[in-house]
């Protein structure tokens, strides 16, 4: 079986969520199939500047074919178009211009896919919201398998994407919440799909003591791993942790690992260690009492999975449906909605050791049963084997005509997203059985939150909107 993995950026040094997801999947599927990665020469997700040489190279034993990006991102144009398509009525042509402005626009990559689609059994596309996925899926037709890595952000409300979700051969979701959202958006229940996610190469014997010694960390601590950014909920995390410190009921220190785009509060019990190697990161997670995940938007959160793999509980933001759903399904994490719940939940984990250890045990089991590499590989291979029997697929729906494309009939994306159901999809563990071809996927349990109404507290209103909905550049979805 020959597979193409198509992703916006690729490389050992690239740590974006979806890009890392794609690399892990490519490297692990390479043991079972012939893999070729098709990607761009870009390494910076903000500019998409060509930095790698075009052509074929091998990375960790996987063939990587790179194509040049036609033009870099113009932040002003992208910001203006984002404002238009996210917040105002607009046309399909506007959305296509937005997609082109977002990038990475690589016409040679799409041409290669169109010309050589038959060379591959399937083309696995990562991140639905980028240029390569939209045009690539349309180029390869029924050979396209999509790993959407979709979050509840405003891009999901654009009208150009539902035809893509309906037109691929299969979808590999990261979480039941993602599947529920995309099915609600595109009514693609008849497209074969499976909730897979991704695993991580977690060391079997991390060295927590080494970490404590190396960085001079004493006493219990909660760890945050990831980009320290307001978009990731870190500002709110600082506020809430300050409240925890002021309450004076606990001894936890907050240890931050990752590059910071925010000023870190100056407090002896808030430690920023910067970007660490994988070994140090895993040692830190093993040494921590818990992992904090303050993000509002996640399609899976690999960091949470890694914490669970190491037997550590997670304290997640309940406003993120995926994280809350994962916590409930795994019984391995608590979640908070507001400062009071944050302080109480943190204190509960800190002061009740049996809760922390039971959550950690559940997390380890959850990871082993649903996210260990053999499980992930088996899910992918099962789906591809089932799909191999019948190459017929719906194919991409044709674009509307010239005049229709220019009619301003598309509602603002924020309105579309606001109407989506909210809440964790199901308490059941992620499904491991894909729907048989052509038949509808068994629907997940309906989300519990109901439709968002204008009066409800919207996660896209207020503090998050300006960051997610506007021109803020972003990396891939799985973080």
């Amino acid at each position, binding site marked *: 079986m020959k597979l193409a993995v198509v992703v916006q950026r690729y490389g050992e040094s690239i740590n974006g969520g979806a890009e890392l997801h794609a690399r892990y999947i490519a490297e692990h599927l390479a043991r079972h199939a012939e893999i070729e990665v098709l990607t761009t020469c870009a390494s910076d997700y903000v500019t998409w500047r060509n930095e790698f040489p075009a052509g074929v190279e091998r990375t960790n034993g996987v063939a990587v074919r790179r194509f040049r990006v036609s033009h870099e991102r113009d932040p002003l144009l992208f910001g203006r178009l984002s404002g238009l398509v996210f917040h105002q009525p607009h046309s399909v042509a506007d959305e296509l211009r937005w997609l082109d402005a977002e990038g990475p626009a690589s016409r040679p990559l799409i041409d290669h896919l169109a010309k050589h689609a038959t060379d591959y059994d399937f083309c696995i596309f990562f991140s639905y919201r980028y240029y390569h996925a939209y045009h690539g899926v349309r180029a390869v037709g029924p050979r396209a398998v999509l790993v959407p890595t979709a979050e509840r952000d405003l891009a999901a409300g654009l009208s150009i994407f539902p035809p893509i979700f309906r037109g691929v051969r299969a979808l590999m979701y990261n979480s039941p919440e993602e599947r529920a959202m995309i099915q609600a958006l595109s009514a693609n229940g008849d497209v074969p799909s499976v909730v897979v996610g991704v695993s991580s190469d977690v060391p079997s014997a991390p060295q927590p003591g080494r970490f404590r010694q190396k960085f001079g960390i004493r006493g219990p601590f909660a760890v945050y791993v990831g980009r320290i950014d307001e978009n990731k909920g870190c500002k709110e995390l600082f506020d809430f942790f300050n409240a925890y410190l002021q309450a004076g009921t606990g001894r936890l220190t907050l240890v931050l690992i990752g590059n910071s785009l925010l000023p870190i509060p100056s407090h002896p019990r808030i430690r920023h260690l910067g970007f660490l190697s994988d070994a140090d990161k895993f040692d830190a997670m093993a040494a921590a009492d818990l992992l904090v995940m303050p993000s509002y938007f996640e399609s899976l959160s690999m960091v949470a999975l890694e914490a669970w793999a190491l037997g550590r509980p997670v304290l997640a933001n309940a406003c993120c449906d995926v994280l809350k759903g994962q916590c409930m399904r795994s019984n391995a994490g608590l979640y908070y909605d507001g400062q*009071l719940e944050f302080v109480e939940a943190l204190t*509960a984990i800190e002061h009740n050791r049996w809760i922390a250890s039971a959550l950690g*045990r559940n997390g380890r089991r959850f990871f082993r049963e649903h996210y260990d590499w053999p499980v992930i590989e088996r899910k992918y291979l099962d789906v591809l084997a089932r799909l191999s029997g019948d190459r017929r697929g719906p194919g991409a729906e044709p674009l509307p005509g010239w005049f229709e494309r220019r009619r301003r009939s598309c509602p603002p994306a924020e309105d579309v997203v606001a109407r989506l159901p909210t809440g964790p999809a199901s308490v059941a563990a992620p499904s491991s059985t894909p729907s048989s071809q052509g038949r509808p996927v068994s629907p997940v349990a309906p989300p519990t939150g109901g439709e968002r109404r204008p009066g409800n*507290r919207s996660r896209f209103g207020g503090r998050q909107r300006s960051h997610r909905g506007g021109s803020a550049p972003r990396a891939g979805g799985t973080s």
Partner: protein
Amino acid sequence: MPEFTVRSDSVDVEQIMEQIRARIREKRGVDYTEEQIRELAAVKLEKFLDPRGLRSDLLDQFRRVQKEQAPPAPPNYAFEDQTLYESHRGLLRWIRRLLQPVLKLFFNPNPLIQALHIQSQLNTLNAERETTRRGLDQLQYEVLHNLVVETTRMGIEVRNLKMRVESLTSRLEFNERRARALESVVVYKPSVEDQAVEATPAAPSQATPPGLSASVTAAAPSAPGPGQRSRRRRRRRGRRGDGPASAVMAGQPGSGEPRADGPAPPDGGDGRGEGGTGAAGADQEGASPAGDVHDSGFDEQ
């Protein structure tokens, strides 16, 4: 930290979250939404609690109001003995002065002049007093302002202290519960002496001191549980440590040294009660196998 009631390996995070929310509701009394909480907190801080949010310009405002609302100065006049005959016309003034004796033939104007003169002086005095009062008012407002600030600060401090006391109380409760839980799970490991005691059940009656009552003596042979024994040992250790270290070293009363000539306790016991001087029983514990039995009977009281 309050304990959670979910005690099993298969934790249910939803149940834990429910308990966390219940505790939050319990703490804040009313089930407000997060927005309401924030709104209330903001209002309180702005208007009452935050000294920076106070009207620090109270005095200025008062002065401004005073200026706006201050009544005009009361009209006054000067009234002297010649005021009645004054005129800007010299001829007229001369004629009036010339005819003044004629006027006095009809009535005596002097009391009238005197009264009006006094009234003029009174008006001046009143105006001066009014000015002084206004100055005092400003001082009073300053005092009031300072009092409000201080009261607010005190309010905040009281609130903080209350929270701290609550926190300490909860910690204390937790520690007490923890201590009780630990006491209940302490496993008693019988020593050689204990085993010897159990092997010779007749020993207690022989070793019972004469001061013990019959009921105590009767209770002594009943085999106490391991938890009770360990508790007793801790108590004895506590008694030993009752006196100051210097006293212990000097062997003074209260030092835990056995005293044969010590005063008899008022309850007629053997002098080993709380606050008593003797710790004979405790000291015996290690020396004689019967010591445990004696103490058993005593502590059962």
